[in-house]
């Protein structure tokens, strides 16, 4: 299998008319693990939603290609079929739809992108077997599959459920949006191991979005990027994580005064942005 590249160039994104991302450049090859760090409100989640195709995020300039597929021309479901996955920071619950039923539809659509609506789903038997195996690997109780999607799940269960979906959908690229938030250290470990297992088996390119070092002890990035004021201002290796952990963002602030002003504005209005 030839490896693909996720190539984001000069991406500008606005939410409700307000510019959030102001020219993001980022290239990820399959098999690589990248970390995207930055303070709250710097636009990290905006990047993930915009790439996945949320209708509230307006792309005003730039490109995003997965291999030779122009992601920005596709609906969200088509982006998933093209091999992009987003593990949500706040997964939505869908009452009355069981995890198993939801995932069976998802897996069917992603694995058989040319299937027509109304044609058969993947075999229940094979699906159940695969689901059980993946749930075992993540230490999830079998009962989980029969529960309604994210309904009444604890924070840790939701994140585990996201990683279960990642494992079932086997994407070329996975964006993990604050997957460690709200998890205790054991849960971070289990979830991270799950991500590493999938990434290794599938050669998935991983983008870990976080503002804590913690998860990066388990999902170790080769490349680290700092998003600040709507732009990626620093690119480096794992040493960047250590620097940030030691010094915080003050040096970034001092080094990039123009982005710092943007950052201040964004932070002031962050609560108004979805």
């Amino acid at each position, binding site marked *: 299998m030839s490896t693909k590249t996720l190539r984001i160039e000069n991406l500008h994104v606005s939410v409700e008319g307000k510019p959030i991302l102001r020219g993001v450049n980022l290239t990820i090859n399959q098999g690589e693990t990248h970390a995207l760090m930055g303070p709250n409100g710097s636009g990290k989640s905006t990047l993930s939603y915009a790439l996945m*195709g949320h209708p509230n995020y307006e792309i005003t300039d730039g490109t995003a290609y997965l291999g030779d597929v122009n992601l920005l021309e596709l609906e969200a*479901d088509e982006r998933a079929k093209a091999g992009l996955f987003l593990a*949500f920071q706040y997964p939505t619950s869908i009452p*009355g*739809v069981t995890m198993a039923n939801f995932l069976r539809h998802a*897996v069917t*659509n992603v694995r058989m992108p040319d299937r027509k609506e109304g044609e058969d789903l993947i075999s229940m038997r094979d699906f159940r077997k695969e689901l059980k195996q993946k749930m075992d690997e993540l230490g999830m109780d079998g009962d989980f599959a029969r529960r309604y999607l994210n309904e009444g799940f604890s924070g840790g269960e939701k994140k585990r459920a996201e990683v279960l979906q990642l494992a079932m959908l086997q994407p070329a690229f996975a964006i993990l949006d604050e997957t460690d938030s709200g998890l205790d250290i054991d849960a971070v470990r289990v979830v991270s191991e799950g991500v590493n297992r999938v990434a290794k088996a599938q050669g998935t390119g991983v983008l870990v979005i976080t503002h804590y070092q913690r998860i990066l002890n388990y999902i170790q990035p080769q490349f680290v990027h700092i998003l600040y004021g709507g732009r990626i201002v620093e690119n480096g290796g794992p040493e960047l994580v250590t620097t940030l952990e030691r010094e915080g963002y003050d040096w970034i602030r001092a080094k990039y005064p123009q982005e710092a002003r943007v950052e201040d504005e964004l932070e002031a209005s962050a609560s108004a942005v979805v």
Partner: protein
Amino acid sequence: MSTAVASSHAIASLEFGEFLNSVPNEPAWLTEKRRAAFESFAATPWPTSRDEEWRRTDIRAFRLNAFDLVHSPAAATLEDLDEIAPARDALASAYGTGIVQIGGQTTQPADLIKLGKATLTDFRTFAESNPEILEKYLFGTVGTSEDALAALHAAMFRGGIVLYVPKGVKVADPLYALSAMTARQRIDTSHTLIVLEDGAEATLVHDLVSTASGESATPGLHLGAVEIVVGKDANLKYVRIQNWDDQTWHFSRERATVDAGGSIQWTIGGLGSRLSKVNQETALAGPKASAQVNGVMFTTGKQHLAYFTRQDHQAENTTSDLLYKGGLTGKSRTVWKGMIRVEPGAQKTDAYQKNDSLILTQSARADSIPGLEIEANDVRCTHGATAGPVDPEMVFYAEARGIPAETAKRLIVEGFFANVYDRISVEPVRESLRLAVAKKLSLG
């Protein structure tokens, strides 16, 4: 009392005499009940938008004189029987035994051997075999004078279904009843009477089905009533799924009384009809009586479905739990007005009512009006209502997992109904409701 009435209201007393001739051999007490009801009908003004229950439900387009209530309908033809065969077969394959009627006339009786000590039969047969029981219960639960339509039903109902389960008899297998209208049989004024004596148990799944197809159909009319009597420690599950064609007017007054320690699980489906006006009431008449009321509505096009529910707590330690869920598309409209009433002596009442509506098009509209009247001081009564479109964040989440928006919406709508399906303990009903809603969703 003399009142001016709309022309569509008028049925002359001469015609009522003719009607009585068309239902021969009825016992004298019944004829007297009919006469009294007819007098009430003649004296009661036709409903208008000034009446509270008709404020949101406009029946000016309804023409009573388009329907012949006076004369016996023609017997069902082979064509009628063929048309309803699929609906009958679906019920027969899922349940023990049952009765099939077209326009209130029996075309297939229930299997007496399978019924055992229970009786599931048509109104006329029951009047002949158990006249005392009929006299004791008929119109003992449902009123005959709430409005002109209630009075008209009591005066001129024709045929119907009676389920009678004697004391202590437990009917293991669910029974079914099919009330059908066809392209030719467009009137059903039948009366449903269900009596479970003390300690009895039964399940009845009652489908109201029309085989007439939408636009070419002539107007249809169901003017019905359901009376339910649940004795001490008796348990009834009654499922009534209304799926008439969309040219049919559906007027139904339904009331159950549950005696001490008895329980009812009462599920109604509102899928069909041009316009429905239903009163569904449950009285908890004895201590520790309980009721679970489930409603599943799905409307399309220009349908209008209006439900008025009551949970009357008349004794202490009684429980009622009502959940109505509706999905709306097109320009359709639903109205739900609920009332929990707690009588002064009904301490330790635990009552709940909830109505959720999923509004799938901009032109659809759902009105939810919960109500409480509480005259006891040690009770727990809660109510709630929600209405709104499909949450776009749910759709996006599903899309992000590769599920196309249309499929996502379908899953979300099906999921919306899941918590009411989960309450219905008659297995095949859940599946048939699910399929019926899915079908309406794909057409709607």
